[in-house]
């Protein structure tokens, strides 16, 4: 990936005042955002996938990204922990401030960034190791060696992911023996084992049945006390059930962003209305 040095990072104090010229369809007035995205554009080669996106993500809330398949939800989500850096034909312009500081700044250590901003994918991807090892892996990488401390982290993470009661007697069994829903909760436990601030979830329920989905959604409600969650979902019902704020993306642009109830009851943009009432294209 290349980050052009001409990247228009707003100088300190010059961040556009949210109150000045704010578009109510794009700015629900987030106080104390954990992320501020400024004019973010992304190209895969010469194909532009994200167009000039500016958005503020609220702390300790669930924000959902919705939109038709291919509109750039996953691409956008991967920007927050610089996962697109792993691809080599990607160009990013604009900036993302995390706790007020650019995630693209040379001082940012990518591993620290990814520890603080964890990710859960659509296909649950436990390591072919024991349940215990799946959770302990991250903390070990980040230097935790003490066995008792690791035990604590494993238990705390599994409890937080509402999985402890189901697996506490078989922590050393292979994680691949868990059901799909359990594997996905294990991945969430693994993400929070390293005590991140943010968990990004990319369609975490799309391979799960309704009951397992409900458990993950319930878990998300519990987690937002301590974490900021951003979820990409193709299910508008899921977005309206779980999220506090919803962003609608279309063709790589942010069309509308607002309080979830508001967006689903009375969207401000016709494109949003057409999409969520199923009259698209």
């Amino acid at each position: 990936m290349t980050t052009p040095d001409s990247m228009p990072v707003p100088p300190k104090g010059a961040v556009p005042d949210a109150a000045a010229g704010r578009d109510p369809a794009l700015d629900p007035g987030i106080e104390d955002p954990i992320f501020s995205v400024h004019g973010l554009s992304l190209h895969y080669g010469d194909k532009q996938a994200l167009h000039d996106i500016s958005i503020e993500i609220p702390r300790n809330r669930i924000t959902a990204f919705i939109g038709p398949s291919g509109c750039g939800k996953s691409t956008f989500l991967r920007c927050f922990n610089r996962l697109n850096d792993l691809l080599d034909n990607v160009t990013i312009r604009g900036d993302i401030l995390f706790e007020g500081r650019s995630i693209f700044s040379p001082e940012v250590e990518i591993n620290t960034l990814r520890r603080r901003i964890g990710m859960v994918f659509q296909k649950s991807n436990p390591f072919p190791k024991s349940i215990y090892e799946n959770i302990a892996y991250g903390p070990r990488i980040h230097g935790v060696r003490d066995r008792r401390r690791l035990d604590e982290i494993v238990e705390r993470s599994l409890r937080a992911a509402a999985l402890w009661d189901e697996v506490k007697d078989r922590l050393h069994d292979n994680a691949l023996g868990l059901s799909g829903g359990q594997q996905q909760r294990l991945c969430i436990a693994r993400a929070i084992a390293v005590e991140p601030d943010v968990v990004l979830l990319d369609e975490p329920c799309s391979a799960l049945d309704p009951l397992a989905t409900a458990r993950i959604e319930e878990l998300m409600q519990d987690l937002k006390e301590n974490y900021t969650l951003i979820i990409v979902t193709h299910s508008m019902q899921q977005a309206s059930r779980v999220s506090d704020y919803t962003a609608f993306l279309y063709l790589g642009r942010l069309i509308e962003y607002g309080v979830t109830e508001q967006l689903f009851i009375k969207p401000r943009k016709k494109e949003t209305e057409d999409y969520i009432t199923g009259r698209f294209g």
Partner: protein
Amino acid sequence: MTRLERHYAEQLEEISSKLMRMGGLVEQAIESALDAYERRDAELAQRVRDADVEINRLELEIDQLGLETLVRYQPAARDLRFLIAAMQINTDLERVGDIASNVCKRVQELCEEPPWEAPIDVPGMGRLALRMLHDALDAFVSGNADAARAVIARDEQLDEIMEQAFADLLQAMRDDTAATSRAIRHSFIAKYLERIGDQATNICELVVFMVEGTVIKHPRLTVESDGTAPGSRGAP
């Protein structure tokens, strides 16, 4: 459009057309009730009361359709607002049907008594109420929030006519005790007709919600997003 999308659209269409049929029947019921009053026609009054079952049947059908649509399609945005409005208008219209029947009951009772020069213009008041209802339903069909607001503004007039009628009827009772029961029946009718204006106002508030997504009933109360009224949790 996929087959499901078509079915969804048809379902919303059907709710709309059934609601309009119901509106037509309800308007006709009021009109006939006023005719029965003017002509002292107890039989016509009975026919209006008998016809109320048709209105009730439509109410059940619309309820059922609305419920099915909610369950199957979980509508959002304008479809959701339409459905919420339609289902409440359904209830409001059924109530107006009941009111027309109540007017007819009082008309039948009045037919048993000697004619009376009442100090209230029942047909005039009734036509005002009917006009409000008609314009409310028009505003719904055309999705016109301004027209709905204009109808709401007319409700006050009906309230004033009713207050005046109460005062005049009370005076009539004092002046001529033999007319007491007829005066009381007329008071009821005045109250019923005023209620029709209220129902038309409800419908118009729903039209504004449907079009603009804003709730305008009880303007002095607002609701927090958790559904409680501010201050309802014992705030100082």
